[in-house]
């Protein structure tokens, strides 16, 4: 009797093990070759003054790939309990952030970082995540699924769920030309997500219209705020030095900076750029995010520790927390802008970077709600 119980228990464990870790077992092979595979190129329009976007040769953007990526982005199917999708932490109305200091994943678990905006993420060439630990959108997309604080799922399970899903079978066929459902891979998922994210181009703000001369002028305060931002007020106003790390037109230098948020002791206990490169000069550095749509993406910084744009400007005005590796650009520009009027002008300029066309663009909306 005792042996039988042990055997049954063993079989149950083995069965559940097969279902979870070896998803190929039992699921039927579905031949998809009767569905036409004829992907159409999707040209991502590059706005005037923007740099060219680098698209990997092994992942050309197609209409079918973008559509598949969009569905996957909004589908919680990739999380362990089907409760979390990419869009949970990347909401279009918040420029694809989530409004939280630290993102909340499965089972209400609190993550380690504030969600980053995806606006113009396709132009990032020098690493992704706050510490730049991955080199491409295709690699980045693989991470959240197995992160215990995010989707906490295993890729084999995700792939099985997609392989048995009739709609996804067809979509993967159309996007990647698979012959049958068993050919769906996590790399294809990542490629589709990357294709969709590359289409998230934001260039419809008041600032954009001004530099493209579609509108005649910014108002006076906005213009003066821009001069402070770019250090070219000619001495009339304090220079903010903002553009060193937030270079127009993308409003990011696509690089990593120690912006005076953490003490030396805190830096030693925090995952920063140093943990990726091992170089002392990278201690305490984080990716400089784009300031496009910045008014929509509070709270700010990697840990969401600054609640408002007022707080951010105050942080830079006072020079931040002293540390060995704090960027010389921060203290050098500390105490500017000093007056409430100057801060107000800088914030008014930052508000011109809000792109309402982007956050309402139907091409980026949840396809399950349309």
């Amino acid at each position: 009797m005792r042996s039988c119980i042990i055997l049954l228990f063993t079989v149950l464990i083995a069965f559940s093990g097969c279902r979870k870790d070896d998803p190929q077992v039992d699921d039927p092979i579905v031949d998809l070759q009767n569905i036409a595979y004829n992907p159409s190129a999707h040209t991502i329009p590059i706005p005037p003054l923007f740099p060219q976007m680098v698209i990997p040769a092994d992942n050309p953007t197609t209409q079918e790939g973008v559509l598949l990526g969009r569905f996957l982005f909004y589908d919680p199917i990739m999380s362990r309990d089907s409760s979390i999708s990419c869009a949970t932490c990347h909401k279009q109305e918040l420029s694809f952030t989530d409004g939280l200091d630290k993102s909340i994943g499965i089972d209400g678990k609190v993550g380690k970082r504030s969600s980053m905006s995806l606006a113009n993420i396709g132009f990032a060439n020098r690493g992704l995540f706050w510490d730049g630990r991955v080199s491409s959108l295709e690699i980045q997309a693989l991470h959240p699924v197995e992160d215990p604080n995010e989707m906490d799922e295993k890729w084999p399970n995700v792939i099985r769920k997609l392989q048995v899903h009739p709609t996804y079978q067809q979509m993967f066929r159309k996007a990647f030309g698979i012959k049958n459902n068993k050919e769906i891979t996590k790399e294809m998922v990542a490629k589709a997500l990357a294709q969709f994210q590359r289409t998230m181009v934001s260039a419809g703000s008041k600032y954009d219209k001004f530099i493209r001369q579609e509108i005649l002028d910014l108002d006076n305060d906005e213009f003066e705020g821009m001069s402070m931002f770019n250090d070219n007020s000619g001495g009339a106003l304090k220079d903010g030095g903002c553009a060193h790390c937030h270079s127009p037109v993308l409003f990011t230098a696509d690089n990593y900076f120690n912006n005076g948020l953490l003490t030396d002791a805190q830096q030693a206990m925090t995952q920063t750029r140093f943990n990726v490169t091992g170089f002392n000069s990278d201690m305490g550095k984080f990716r400089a995010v784009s300031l496009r749509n910045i008014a929509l993406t509070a709270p700010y910084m990697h840990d969401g520790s600054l609640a408002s744009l007022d707080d951010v400007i105050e942080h830079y005005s006072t020079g931040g927390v002293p540390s060995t590796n704090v960027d010389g650009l921060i203290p050098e520009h500390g105490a500017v802008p000093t007056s409430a009027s100057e801060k107000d002008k800088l914030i008014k300029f930052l508000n011109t970077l809000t792109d309402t066309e982007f956050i309402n663009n139907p091409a980026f909306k949840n396809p399950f709600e349309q």
Partner: protein
Amino acid sequence: MRIATLLISMIVLLGACEKEPMVVEKAGLKLTFKAVYDSEPLLLSRNYEFMNGDSIRFQRADLIISDISIGNSKNVSLSQVEWLGFSEKNADPSKIEEGFSFNFNDVEPGVYTSLYWNIGLNQVQNRSTPANYTFPHPLSNAELYWAGWNSYIFSRTDGKLLTESGTYDFSYHTGGDILTRALEWNQNIELKAGEVKEIIIYIDYKKIFVQDGEVYDIKNNLSSHTSAQIAVAHAIADNMKLAVKYELK
């Protein structure tokens, strides 16, 4: 028939011989740029002894260089634009000896009498913007473009001066057409067919601040970002030109 075949074969062979291009072997030139501090390889974030008991530490050390050529009776263009990103390269202790090497393997053999290059860009290049280039072209990097100047940032020399009275953060950026500095090294450079000659070009970051015993007043001139600080930018650009040393291997 056999004779005819033989004849045709010979004609074909002869024709082939005539078409064979004359192979003229070229010479190679390797230019290696190294950042040093007082002859030691420059390591980012390391404290170096400066002057009068002070120390200095560099956080950024980058340059755009352009119009690299060698000349004798005529100029041979080698490269239009290159990026010397010591901020990244010299952050890695295992790579600080490497420097940035550029190999030119298709140079006409001969004796050249000068090496020419610019720190900064020429006016035509500086009218472009990052939108005109594709990554990884150096000029595609938006971080190197300063919209307020309508110019690329030709050099960035940022760091901290550590003194008894406190720490002084300095940030010297040069840009704008008038801050391009043309360099010329007059030296016989004999390039032989099939051989590669190397020139090592050292940029001594101490010499940017100390020239013939004269110490630049960092404390009172901490940055060069705005038009009001143009004199500081000129001083840094001039000193950088004087901080260059050459070695023909």
